[in-house]
Each structure stands twice: as structure tokens, then as C-alpha cells.
């Protein structure tokens, strides 16, 4: 694939949140949702439709892959779950997006918008 991570920026917010949620471990859909809600302090709750539409697109774009359920993860209600794992490409895309956001933040600070570090 010749697509560079930069050419896909900016990422839709939902996509970025999902990537962040998958950064440290493989998760299934509901876990992603819960993680996003927890991380944002309840500010953002992804709807099921938005979640799976994003997942579908991210699978196509190669950001994530589907993996078999890890035995170490406790099963919730015995339901069969699909787990998603971030790919190296997904990581570099997430990193590129983070860089972009940091750059934006720097620019905003320089013009006196945002509060500086403590």
C-alpha cells in the first residue's frame, strides 16, 4: 500500500478515539465504547452504529485487524466477541494524527489562545 499516514489526516474523531482505545490492548466493540467513555470522562459516548461503521472503514484502510478472542480476557456473559488489534500502520497513523494535534496546540498557544502548562 502506497498510502502514507499523513495523507489520511485529519482523522475523524471517532477513528482517533478507537485507535487510542486499542493502543495498549486488543478490545472488542463494547470494550472500545466503554474505554472511550471512561477516557473522556463521559463526555463522548460512541453509538453502536458510529462505532461499527468506523471499525468497518478502519478494517478496510488497514488501521486495525480482527483477531480471535484471547483466552486471558474474561468473557462477558459468554458472548462470542470479535476483538480488534491495532496494526503497525494504524499506530503510525495515530502517531501522525497526534503530531498534527500537538502542532495545532503549539500554534494555538503561541497566539495566546490556550492556557500554558502550569
Amino acid at each position: 500500500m502506497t498510502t502514507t499516514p499523513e495523507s489520511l489526516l485529519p482523522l475523524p474523531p471517532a477513528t482517533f478515539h478507537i485507535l487510542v482505545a486499542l493502543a495498549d490492548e486488543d478490545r472488542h466493540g463494547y470494550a472500545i465504547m466503554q474505554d472511550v467513555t471512561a477516557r473522556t470522562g463521559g463526555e463522548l459516548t460512541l453509538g453502536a452504529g458510529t462505532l461499527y461503521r468506523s471499525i468497518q472503514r478502519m478494517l478496510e484502510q488497514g488501521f486495525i485487524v480482527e483477531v480471535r478472542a484471547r483466552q486471558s480476557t474474561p468473557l462477558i456473559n459468554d458472548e462470542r466477541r470479535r476483538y480488534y488489534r491495532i496494526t503497525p500502520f494504524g499506530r503510525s497513523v495515530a502517531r501522525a494524527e497526534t503530531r498534527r494535534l500537538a502542532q495545532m496546540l503549539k500554534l494555538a498557544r503561541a497566539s495566546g489562545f490556550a492556557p500554558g502548562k502550569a
Partner: protein
Amino acid sequence: MRAYRALLHLYPASFRGEYGEEMAAIFRHRLRDADGPFAWLALWIGVAGETIVNALAVHWDIFRQDLQYAARTLTRARGFAATAILIVALGVGANTAAFSLTDFVLFRPLPFPDANRLVTLWERTLGYGRLQLSPANYHDWRLAATSFERVGAYTTVSKNFVGNGEPERLEGAFVTADLFPALGVSAALGRTYSAGQDFRILPNGTDGEDAILVLGDPLWRRAFGADTEIIGRTVVLSERPFTVIGVMPPAFSFPTRKAEFWIPYAVTPGDYADRGNNYLYGIGRLKPGVTLSSARIEMSVVAARSRQQYPKENEGIDVTVNAFRDELSQQSRTMVLALSGAALCVLLIVCANLANLLLARALARRQELAVRTAMGAGRERLVRQLATESLVLAALGGALGVLVAVLVVPLLWQLVPANLPTSATPGLDLRVLGFAAVLTLVTALAFGLAPLVTTTRRGADADVRGLREGARAIGGHKERLRGVLVIVEVLASVVLLITTGLLVRALWTIQARDPGFRPDGILTMRTALPMPRYARTAARTAFYTRVLDEVRAIPGVSGAAYISFLPMVVPGGIWGVGLPGRPAERRDQATASMRFVTPGFFSSLKIPLRRGRDVSELDTMTTQMVAVVSESFVKRYFPDDEGIGHTFTFGFTDRSIVGVVADIRVRGLERSSEPQVYVPYRQQPDSSFVGYTPKDLVVTASTPLEQLAPAVRGIIGKADPRLPVSDVRPMTDIIDAETASRSVQVRVLAGFAFVAFLLAAIGIHGVLSFAVSQRTPEIGVRIALGAQRGDILGMVLKQGVALVGAGLLPGLALAYFAGRTLQTLLAGVTPADLPTFGAVIGLTLLMALGGTLLPTLRALRIDPIKAIRAE
């Protein structure tokens, strides 16, 4: 939970299949977490909104993908795509054009307020059916009738106008004061005629029209630069000054779409006295709540009273009341419907052809589709993709078709006779665009669905087989479907060809009709002698003698004469014929047309003199009253005799027959004419039969007519400088005008038929070539086993002939019925016209041969070794 699953159906099946379970599970969690009815309600509202938005987004994603895929595959199959798009464009274009015309002519309300209350009024007699109204009857009936809000009348007129450039001949109308109010229109600028007196009876001996004028919008813009100060200005028409009192709104045009000015109608006492002088067209506006049938009943009572009051003049005169909408003649109606039928035939063929194209393509893509199914593509996704592809083709074709229609409609508009009372031309509006869109969709479905059904119905098994066997598998079922499609194409094109053929034959029949005179080398022009200057017979005689003598002296001129009205130009002028022992009546067929002529008229037009003599300069008011009559006159009134010497009463005078000439077609080539009576011009009494005063000049010459015209104009100008000369044209133009609209119509139909024919041939070719390519191995084996070339040839030919034959036979039957519905247009050609049917059968066989030729040659060239090795 069930509700949520139902909601999930908004997503495409593929997406639902993939993630539905997971989403349901998530929902279950959230439902459990929601405590209290408010949280529960909020959850549901949030979920419903989210589902709708995302479902649409997912659909859109898929559509975009399919679109890209379609664009890719179609660019790869560029030839196929171009053919398909062109064919759709042809079908949609032809039908959109035909529809916009049909809609405009037949279905749209007339451009007048409450147009369904407008009716036309006519006199009716047993002999001639519908006639215009005489001024006196119009006047009486208008006053007596109570069914109408308003009744007005008009008669057409044309005038010379010299604007900024070339002199032009304008068409317009004399209208009574109540006509505009009856139509429900008023001037855009200034006013129309004030009511009060509906029309004026001119003082005896004057011939002046009221010198006020209402202009049509096109004329106002063209000749006066849309000058808003025009009211009150003087405009000269045919050398007479008129004061402009009003300008009509843009779309208004009445009575024809060529009419551009209106002058108040006024009548001479002589005209008014003559109840047999019918030239007014009556228009009434029914009172609200009055129905057409009750108006008819009332008017027939009114007409009956007139019959009692004027037993002689109004004998047998009844009244006809028709809805204005129905005035468009039956012929134009049939023609517009025939056009639509032809367009539909073309569309049918187009759909069949496209279905064929796509079927062949679907067969060729079996492997591709099978591979994709094997790799996990759901059936729903494949169907969707193919449908998107058809839609893309149809949309592109439809857009191109609309473009075609935009170009074609103005051409087709020329076919509709000018008698539609509006100057607007059918444009591309929402209705027409909507129609085109629906048509495109229908086409897409019609041709796109058939292949879909056959490619997807057979299930995974067939797909796997397709993968395994590749293109060798012959879908017998598909083959049959394609055969049926070709049969439909042949059928439709046969119907179109025969219908066109019948109309061509009708056109030829009419063109071949002998008008009764020889139109070649004859120049005609009109010089209406103004009254009262020429009221006296002596004054007129002096004018005619001088002009005719000088014209005859021009080198190359072999004859010149004046007549009241040229044949085919003015058909009326009908009078009752009285025979000894039976008074003049207008009842039954006891009538004839009256024309005053100068000597030499018959020889100028090469109308054969059968017996007796021409009218002569010696036939004057002081000698015996005589007439020359047509053969049909003698046949009808003196059937046992040669006619010469008999006396009959005609126009209040007893006349004796001195000559018999051949019949001419006074009423044009398509209608039969009444017998003709020609009266010597010197026997037109002072101030009588003013409307019949000879005004049409015919000049027969061997020199080019364009060179002749200025010389004749000069002579008339010298004889009377104030006399306008108009309608200068060769007699052949008058004859051609008789068949002009018909020949254009036939040409358009022939265009449709040609397209249909071509498409059908392409269809046959497609099916047979495909069949041959499918059977290549089989044919190879046959050849290897010793089959002769002749056998192979016969095999392929037989298939072609069978297809064509199956379409031809029902096509012939259908065409016969189509011909029967067109009978009013056929001018006596029978719907079962043998030459036409023969020609079409021949053409169709030729088409079959043409379509079969290439595939057959290919079959013959099959090399058995290669064909079998390819296995």
C-alpha cells in the same frame, strides 16, 4: 430488543450480517444500564437517530464504492458502455420529445383562464356539415343565447407591413368586441376593443375597417423594440393607417400561433344581408354551471327559431357547439398519437436491445462474478453492484437523451399545424424532465433487471459451475430469453415500418392526385380591389382589361386571368342551386361553389374545356346570364344530358350553361369538392357579391416566375398605384403546401422506423454472433466429423430466420390494427395495403440476412482443430 433488530434492517444486509449481533449485544448492555423511564426514552431516541444517520452513511459508502467500481468496469468496457448509453439516449430522447409535444398539444389546458368553459360555435347543414357563421346569424344567435357569459367571433386576415426592413406579410384577425373578454384575456399594455357594440355595420358604400389595432407581443418586440410608448402611435398595414390601442401579453396568440395583430371586425351591409356568407368563427364562454350539453340544447332551439324567421336563407341550418379544447383537428391528434406510438416502439426496442447487451455481458462476466462469490461477496452486494452499473448507464443515457430531446422538440413542433391558439413553444419544464427521469428509471429497470434475475437466481451451485466451466456453459434459459427479446424487437420494428409505409403510400396517393389543373409555370398574386372605388362593374372591367392586356403582352406569357378565389386557397363561396320546378335551396347536396372569372382562366390553368365555350368578354349585364360549370355539376343536376343550354338559378339569377369544364379540387387534395360554377366577370352586378370580386391573378408563362413578378407588379402599380399586391407565389407552392406538413410528419416517422430497423438488426446480429461463439466447439466437432459448409450455413441461418419469423408474423397482425386506427390519415389507402406489407416483409428478411451474415461467416471460418483444442 425486537424493535432494535428491526431498526438494524435499515443497514445494508452485508453490514448487518457482519456487525448486527455485536450491535445488538451492545444495545442489550446499554438497555440494562438505563434505569428509569427517562433514561430509557433518551436511550431509544439517541439510538434511533444514530442508527438512521449511520445507516444512510453506510449505504452511501457502498453506493460510492459501487459507483467507483462501475466507473472502472465501464471504462474498461468502453465500447459496450458507449453503445448502451447511446441506445438509452436514443430511446429517452425520442420519447421525451414525443411526450413534450403530446403533453403540449393534447393534455395541457389552453392558455386561457377557465378554458374548459370555452366553446366554439358553428353552423351546420346537411350537405356540408360544419360551416362558419354568417354575420347575421352570429348576431342573432349571440343576442338570443343565454348559456354564455360572452360570445365573440373572429375571422382571419393578413396584411402587408413594412417595418424597419423587408416588407412582410402579417397574419392576424378581425375580432368582435366581445372576443377578448370571452377568451378571458386583456391587454398587457393599453386596452383591447371596448365592448358596447359587438361589431359595426359599415355605412353603405364604405369599406373602411375601424382604424384601431392591437399588437401581439412578438410583433411588438420585433418591429417596435418593445416600445412602451407605442400606444396611440400610428402603424401602417397594407397602406392603411391604424392607431395602436393595446399590446397583448407574451404567450397570447389567437386564433393561430402565427397571428400577430387584431383589428375590430366590421361588416358591409351587403355581407350582412347575406346569410349564406359564412366566414365568422364563433367563440363562447359558458356561464359558470352551464354544461356543454345544455348549451347545445339551448342553441338548437335558437337555431330553430332562426329557421322559422328566415325560412329561405336558413333552411336546414342548425348549430354546432363544441368544446374549444377539441378543436385541434382529429388528424393532428392522430398524428401526435402516432408519433408517441412510434416513440414507444423505439423505446421498447431500445430496452430489448439493452437487455440483450447486458445479458451477453452478464454471461461473459460469469467467471468474474463466480470468483467474487467464491471469495465471499454476498449476493446482495453483487446485485447492488450490477444495479448501480445499470443505473449509471441509464443516467448517462438519460441525460444525453434529454439533450437529444431539447434539440429535437423545435423540429417536431413544426409538424403540429399552426391552429393551436398559443404562441408559446413546448419547452423543457419540470413535467417533461420528470417524465424523462421516470422513463430512464423504467428503462434501467427493464434492461437491468433481466440479466440480474438470470445471473443471481441460480444460486451458489450455478456460480460454482460457472467458475469451473468458464464461458463454455450455454445457459439455455438465457439463450431463450435473448431470443424472445429479439422477437420483440422485430415485432416492434415491423409495426413501425408498416405504419410508416402506409403513411408514405397515403402521401404519395395524395401527391399523385390530379388537382384538375396544371400548376407548373403559373404565377399567382392577389390584388383586392378596394370598395367603393371599384363598386361599379364598369370600373372593375376597365381595371381587369388593362392589367390583363398588358400582362399578356409580356414576352413569354401565354395566359393571364382573374378569379374570385384561387382553388385550395379559399375553399368556400357556396350557393344553393335552383332547378326548373325546384327553388334554390342549400339543403342536401343542391349546392355549388361560385367563382367570377375573366376569359382565359381555364386555358391559363390548363383546365380542359369539355363542351361548349369559355366565358367571354361579350357576356355582359345586357346579354343573357350565362355560366360555365364543372362536369360534376352536370352529372349531379342534369344526369341525362350534356348540360349545355340548361338553365338553373344561382345567386338570385337564372343562368344558362354555355360551357362544361373538368372538375378541379377546390377544397384541396385531401377533401372532395362541391361542383363548380364559373360566372363571367362582367356579369357581376354593381355593388353585389362584393366578396366575390375577382382578386386572384394567375399568369402562365414560360419564363422564370421570379423575373415575371416585378413586371406584373409594375403593370398593376401603373393601373392603380394605391393597390396593394400580396401573396405573390407560384401555383406549385400552393399545391406543395397541401402536403407539406404531411410529408414532414412522414419523414419523422420514417426516422423512427429507420432507427428501430437498425436496432433490431443489431439485436439479431448480437444474439446470433453470441450463439455462434458459444457453439464454436460444437461446430468444430461437426466439421471434424464431416459436416458440409452448407449444413453449418443452414444451421445458423435457420436460427436467424426462426427468430425473425416469430417476430414478423404477430408484427404484421399488429401493424394491420395500428393501420386501422390511423385510417383517417391514410387517404383511402387500405390498412392491408399489399405493396407496403410486401415491402416490409422483404425488408425484414433482408434485415434477418444482414444480421445473420457476419455470424454465419464466422461459423464457416471455424477451424475444427483449433476449436476442439481450445477445450
